[in-house]
C-alpha cells in the first residue's frame, strides 16, 4: 500500500483542491471538474497510471446537487494498482465534462456511452454521438428519472414505423421487474407471487 499512499500524497501536494473520496478498495479522490484533465494527466505521466480501465458516470437522482458525477478508473500496468478519480458536473441541467480522449484514445467510446446513457457532454470529444441507442433517441436511459420500462417514442426508421405501425413502447411489467424480493420464503419472494392479472392493454384492477 505504500505506492498507493504515495500517489495520494503526491496528488495532494500538486493539487491542493483534491479531496479524498470514500472507497472500500483502492484509493479514490474527488477533483474539481476544471482540474480533472490535469489530475488525469499527472496520474498518467508522473504516477504511471497508464491504462484507463473504465470511465462511467453516476446520477445521484433528481433534485440532488450536484447531480452528475463522472468517474475514471485508472490502472498502473507497472505497479499493479488502481486509482479512482471522480469529478462532479457543475451544471445539473446540461452536465458537461472535459474529454479525456486526448489522454487515452480508449476514452472515446467510454465517453460516448456515458453521453448516451446520462447525457453528459464531453467537451473536446472528437465524435460525440450515441453509441448504444440510435441517433435521434430523445432520452438518456440511465438517468434516475427514466423508467426501466422505457418511454413512448418513434422507431428510428420512419418508413418501417409507417409500414408496421410499430413504435417504441414501454415494456409490459406484469407486476415485475423480474427479480425476487430479498428475504422471506421463495414462493412469496418470487415474481410469480405478485399480481400478474394486468398488462399494458388491461388496466390493473382496483384493490377495493
Amino acid at each position: 500500500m505504500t505506492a498507493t499512499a504515495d500517489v495520494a500524497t503526491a496528488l495532494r501536494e500538486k493539487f491542493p483542491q483534491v479531496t479524498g473520496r470514500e472507497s472500500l478498495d483502492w484509493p479514490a479522490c474527488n477533483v474539481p471538474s476544471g482540474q480533472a484533465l490535469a489530475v488525469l494527466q499527472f496520474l498518467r505521466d508522473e504516477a504511471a497510471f497508464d491504462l484507463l480501465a473504465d470511465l462511467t458516470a453516476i446520477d445521484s437522482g433528481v433534485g440532488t446537487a450536484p447531480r452528475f458525477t463522472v468517474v475514471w478508473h485508472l490502472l498502473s500496468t507497472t505497479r499493479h494498482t488502481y486509482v479512482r478519480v471522480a469529478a462532479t458536473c457543475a451544471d445539473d441541467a446540461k452536465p458537461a465534462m472535459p474529454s479525456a480522449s486526448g489522454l487515452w484514445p480508449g476514452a472515446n467510446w467510454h465517453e460516448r456511452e456515458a453521453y448516451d446513457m446520462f447525457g453528459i457532454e464531453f467537451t473536446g470529444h472528437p465524435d460525440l454521438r450515441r453509441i448504444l441507442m440510435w441517433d435521434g433517441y430523445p432520452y438518456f436511459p440511465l438517468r434516475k428519472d427514466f423508467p426501466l420500462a422505457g418511454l413512448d417514442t418513434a422507431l428510428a426508421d420512419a418508413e418501417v414505423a409507417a409500414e408496421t405501425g410499430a413504435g417504441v413502447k414501454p415494456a409490459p411489467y406484469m407486476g415485475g421487474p423480474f427479480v425476487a424480493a430479498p428475504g422471506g420464503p421463495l414462493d412469496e419472494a418470487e415474481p410469480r407471487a405478485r399480481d400478474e392479472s394486468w398488462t399494458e392493454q388491461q388496466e390493473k384492477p382496483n384493490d377495493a
Partner: protein
Amino acid sequence: MILRATMVSPNTELAFDSKIEGDVVVSRLDAVINWIRTNSMWPMPMGLACCAIELMAVAAARFDIARFGAEVMRFSPRQSDCMIVSGTVTYKMAPQVRRLYDQMPAPKWVIAMGACASTGGMYRSYAVLQGVDRILPVDVYVSGCPPRPEALLDALIKLQEKIRREPAAKRLFRA
C-alpha cells in the same frame, strides 16, 4: 478362391414407369408447389443473440437441418424463404430486421426462435422490442431460452405442415 458376385437383377418398376404411365404425372398443383416449397426452405439466419448458437448447432452434423431441406443458410435475403429470428431484437435493430424481411421474395415465412424473439423474453427493458411479431408476421413461435435444437427442427416441421395446407396455386395467380 472364386469370387462370385450374386447380382440381383435391378428392379425397373420401383418408381415412375413411363412405359406404363406415359409422360404424364397427374397431381394437384397445390400438392406439387407445396412439395417443392416444403422440401427446400432456405433459411435467412437472423442471428441476434445466443439463440444463434443453437441455430448453428441445428445446422451442424449432430442435428443436421439438411434432413429437412433447410440447410442452405443464405446471408442474402433475396435468396431465402424463411427468416429464423434467433435472438433478442432491440429497437435499434428492429427496422433492419423488417427491411431484410421486406427484401425476401414471396412466398416467405418467419420463425420466432426463443423467448426473446417471441415476446422480448427476460428483457423487460426500454431497449428491447417485446416480440418480433410487432414488426413481422410470425408463422411459428419456439419456446425456450434458448430452445433445444430439436425444438427448432420441430418448428421447421410444423412450418412445413402449415405450408402443405396452403392454397398455393390460388395465391400464385392472385395479383
